[in-house]
């Protein structure tokens, strides 16, 4: 298929369609609204379910219900809406049903603004609701990657029966880039055996995110943890670039990853030995690759569009092997390559 000039939000929506999403439930919020709007047109066209929910809380619970029938269901939102979904996500996570959530992050806290940001790192990667769970979190840096990771999100959600979140920042949602969409998948899925479809000729299925007795719930928790451990072991993804000889290691995700790349390229042109690690899975976090790369680094620079939410993870990965610095722009400001380059040059001069 040929490349098209695609806006991130539309590309994600279209990728979800092609991956095989059965149902979309959502509520408007900038900067993701085009995704909702695209779905409102395309889902009915394809004979699938689209419903504009009355709120984000309703949306995530509709997703929960649809997912319980074995369908591939999704929603999309941005920071404030994701906050409202936390209880629902916590239920879904313990229920072992698959769901995909797209978060096109904007400035926070509070109402914040509609400019690009990465202010949701903590609430996405720490299992922002109550209880011991995590969601898979995928962070694309280009429109093409947004497409690819959307498809992956469905496959991972399905494989592990869990929540997979596509964490785009406002840049990814709003920008256009030539990209190639995958072909429309054949949808011949059969309902999984655990799905709620009416107990026809079999004992009833039930889905319940609780265990009133401590022993029951403890066992459910350890089972969930075992699954999360499997995901940690198999699903870590990141891009490493020029790290082999890097004395300075830049760590940045999402569109900051690509912006940092420009800075790294220019720094290399200045003769500075600098490399880049771009986590693609924010959870599970690429601790190992960063630990290894940090082993021979003199300094690690984390760059984010927030006040340093990923720094904890990087510090844990680096584990004291090198000092960890931070450069960040919260509240909707986007760092430009120049300022990152400046920090790199600064660090290269320290000894």
């Amino acid at each position, binding site marked *: 298929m040929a490349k098209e000039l695609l806006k991130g939000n539309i590309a994600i929506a279209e990728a979800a369609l092609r991956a095989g999403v059965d*149902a979309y439930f959502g509520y408007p919020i900038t900067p993701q609204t085009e995704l909702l709007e695209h779905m409102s047109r395309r889902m009915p066209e394809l004979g699938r379910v689209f419903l504009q929910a009355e709120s984000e809380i309703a949306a995530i*619970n509709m*997703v929960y219900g649809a997912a319980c029938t074995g369908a591939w269901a999704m929603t999309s939102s941005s920071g404030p809406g994701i906050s409202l979904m936390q209880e629902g996500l916590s239920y879904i996570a313990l229920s072992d049903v698959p769901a995909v959530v797209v978060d096109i992050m904007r400035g926070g806290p509070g109402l914040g603004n509609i400019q690009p940001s990465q202010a949701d790192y903590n609430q996405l990667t720490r299992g922002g609701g109550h209880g011991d769970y995590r969601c898979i979190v995928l962070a694309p840096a280009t429109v093409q990657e947004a497409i690819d990771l959307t498809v992956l999100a469905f496959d991972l959600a399905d494989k592990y029966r869990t929540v997979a979140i596509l964490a785009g920042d406002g840049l990814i949602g709003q920008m256009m880039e030539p990209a190639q969409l995958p072909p429309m998948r054949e949808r011949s899925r059969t309902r999984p055996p655990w799905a709620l479809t009416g107990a026809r000729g079999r004992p009833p299925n039930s889905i319940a995110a609780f265990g009133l007795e401590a022993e029951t719930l403890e066992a459910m928790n350890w089972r969930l943890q075992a699954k999360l451990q499997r995901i940690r072991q198999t699903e870590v993804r990141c891009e490493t670039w020029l790290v082999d000889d890097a004395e300075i290691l830049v760590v940045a995700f999402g569109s900051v990853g690509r912006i940092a790349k420009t800075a790294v390229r220019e720094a290399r042109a200045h003769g500075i030995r600098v490399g880049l690690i771009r986590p693609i899975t924010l959870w599970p976090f690429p601790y190992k690759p960063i630990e290894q790369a940090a082993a021979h680094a003199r300094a690690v620079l984390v760059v984010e569009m927030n006040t340093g939410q990923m720094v904890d993870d990087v510090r844990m990965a680096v584990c004291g092997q090198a000092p960890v610095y931070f450069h960040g722009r919260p509240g909707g400001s986007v760092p430009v390559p120049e300022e990152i380059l400046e920090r790199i040059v600064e660090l290269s001069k320290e000894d």
Partner: protein
Amino acid sequence: MDEQIAVVNVQEQLVYARPRALTEETTNYCPGCTHGLINKLIAEVIDELGIQENTISVSPVGCSVFFYRYLVLDGVVAPHGRAPAVAIGIKRMLPDRVVITYQGDGDMAAIGMSEVVWAAMRGENITAFFVNNANYGMTGGQMAPTTLAGQVTTTTPEGRDVETMGMPTRMAELIAGLPGSAYVARCSTYDARTIRDARNAIRLALRAQMAEAGFTMVEFLSACPTNWGLSPQGALQWIKDTMVAYYPLGEIKVSEAVQRLKTKR
């Protein structure tokens, strides 16, 4: 006249049995709690309509959190108050299944107000069973939206003051006032007659859903002897004497389509 003489035997016949759609498990409900009775009635109607293998339940958070297990149905427990949204997610995927929610008054009328109003507003083809026991049962008897004026609960030690807390919520009337609701009735289970009426209302609500008439709801005035501090019998009496005065029983809304069903049978 026919010459044949029929041999008439006296046989013992089982005239009332536990409904098949009701699990054999003993419930967690308190002695005399009419949650049990309502569960049983719903099971009876499901048996009667033969829709057990076609019905999916959505349970609330509250004393009836195990509804999904007491009824022999595929089912899920929704977050507190969100049963309608979860049910909508299910129903939109499987429009030919019967999808029912079961919610307490705290669950539906307090935290879940938006979800149920929206289900009714959109005329979602689901049936809500709404158990109004005038308090939060599971958490130990706090004021619910439905708590009567002056009623003492653990959070209205001086009785519900309608000046600061507002008048008790008449959910059936509120839902009936919304465009998408097709059938709304308020019932109780304090004697054989009200139980019969309740069973009829449940049946009609489910038939209406099967006929895609829109949102249907049956409210039950239900006893919570434990938190009311009354005996099971005293609790039923209180419903009859006190609750019914504020929450009149009967059909509150019957859309034309449902009216047709009613006459058709």
